[in-house]
């Protein structure tokens, strides 16, 4: 077998478990994400979706025995800062915004630009935030000023900040945790288009959502989580949206996949 035929996954999880005291949030997860692939992560509330992505992001450390690989390299001493440095960006369910602060501060949260003296490049961040807002978020240059606090924005606009932030840093992998939650129809459409554009740029994404009508059209593969374990891992070609729904219902009722 030729080595080049084997695609090295961007991210690979081997036997990852995560327990919070008595509660086992993740049980022996084996998961991989290939380059240019969009994986939909489905599952009920409490199935472990958020824990899984927070583990990938370095927010939680996996329990001993679990291993995380990035492009074939085992990651040790894993942290959110490191994850972002090597190109994993997340749009969190909770949006991870600091609402009393200005838009530009939020866009560059944790990755502030600095000038050659090591001081913050405030005008640079303002200008960049302004550009991103007009080019990617559909604000005209005077509609929302980068000095506005996030507090003054609507839910969709806030989500826009979180998504634009992920896009700006040229991530290899974008993780989206329920990005369409609380969004209007047009805002949802914009978000789904953004997810498609990730693939067009040859980057990978993990897309978590409760609405399979949002997930199904944009993903290549679907993973179903149930009570901390993977219940199903199917490519889109192998499953229709109807049988996917049946499968999810069977997982919810009986705890086992039958599509």
């Amino acid at each position, binding site marked *: 077998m030729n080595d080049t035929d084997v695609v090295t996954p961007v991210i690979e999880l081997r036997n990852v478990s995560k327990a919070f005291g008595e509660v086992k949030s993740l049980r022996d997860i084996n998961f991989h994400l290939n380059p240019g692939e969009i994986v939909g992560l489905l599952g009920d509330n409490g199935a472990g979706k958020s824990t899984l992505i927070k583990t990938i*992001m370095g927010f939680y450390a996996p329990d001993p025995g679990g291993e995380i690989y990035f492009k074939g390299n085992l990651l040790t001493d894993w942290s*959110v800062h490191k994850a972002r440095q090597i190109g994993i960006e997340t749009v969190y369910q909770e949006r991870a915004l600091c609402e009393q*602060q200005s838009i530009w501060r939020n866009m560059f949260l944790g990755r502030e630009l600095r000038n050659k003296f090591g001081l913050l490049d405030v005008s640079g961040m303002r200008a960049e935030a302004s550009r991103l807002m007009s080019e990617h978020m559909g604000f005209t240059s005077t509609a929302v000023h980068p000095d*506005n606090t996030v*507090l003054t924005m609507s839910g969709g606009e806030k989500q826009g900040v979180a998504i634009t932030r992920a896009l700006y840093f040229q991530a290899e992998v974008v993780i989206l945790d329920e990005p369409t939650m609380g969004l209007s129809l047009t805002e949802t459409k914009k978000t789904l288009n953004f997810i498609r554009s990730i693939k067009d740029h040859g980057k990978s994404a993990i897309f978590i959502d409760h609405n399979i009508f949002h997930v199904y059209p944009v993903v290549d593969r679907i993973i179903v989580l149930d009570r901390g374990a993977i219940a199903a891992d199917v490519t889109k070609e192998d499953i229709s949206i109807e049988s996917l729904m049946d499968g999810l219902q069977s997982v919810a009722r009986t705890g086992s996949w039958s599509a």
Partner: protein
Amino acid sequence: MPIDETFLAQQSPEEPGSKPQEKKVNRSKPPSVWRRFGLQFGIAAVGLLIWTMFLVAAPVVFTKPAIYLAFASTTPLFLIIALGLTFVIITGEIDLSFPAVMALSMVAFTWVFESGGYLGVAFLAAIVTGAIAGAFNGYLVAKMGIPAVVITIGTSFLFRGLGLAAMAGTGFPLTDSALDPLRQILVGRIWLGIPMQFVWVIVIAVLLWFLLNRTRFGSHVFLIGDNAISAKLMGVNLMWTKIGVFMLVGVMAGFAGLIASFEVSYFWPTLGEGTLLNTIAAVFVGGTSPFGGAGSIFGTLIGGFIIGSLNAGIVSAGINAFWTQVVFGLVIVLSLIMQVVIQNRVRN
């Protein structure tokens, strides 16, 4: 007239019938200076108001420089710490142990000086002691997760006790002529009799303004105080930032301890007692949010001078000294109310 017409055109969307539109119009403007610095204007206005009241009540005192020179020499003793404490309060924490740190730093200073060390080394010993005490506080708060208001009461007793035990309860005179160079630098009088500690307050305020507004550390201070979970999710190091802000207060307490002791040429191991409430009041009167996430160095600077001038101002205005506490309390309570009112207005 054309000007009136455009004025009317701008006013018309604010009719009650078209409320959502008005909101959009509101958002389309970049935030006004009032919106962004409203609180600072408010604090400056309160300062001016109090000053005017003193001016009217006691014109003989407040039109002569002597009273201002007195403020300039006494206010820095706690204002220097208040500037550092602003960082701690913006992160949503509090430090109650800095009065004890002032004394502990001075213990280190007198030890090094007495054992024949260089003056510069003794000075550094005081600053480093402050930093270590601050780091200890920060570690207990950030790493161990003990609420700051509780643990810094504990460390306050600890630091004060160590200081008292080390000095066996006695003081240390700072009258040796070998100390004169440092005395000149810290509390000497310069042009027009302006005390050096006033110069230091301004220098430190400028430096800390840069630290707060132009460095990653300062940025993280705001972000953590605003929403610690969000900051953590985006990779901000909570622990080191928090340890950093506590160290900053420790360093400032060490420096203020030196200034306070040299001002009276004597180190009492009870140094710092009585500065706690003034210092905290200066930060809150200066508009730093008691909820964290917002605050300014400029505000604390004004707040400090408001607090510093009240006592002398009230007495020289001929008000019975028993009333000073009442006025003091009123200024602090009204400032906090003003802060909340302005913040709500800015938000809506």
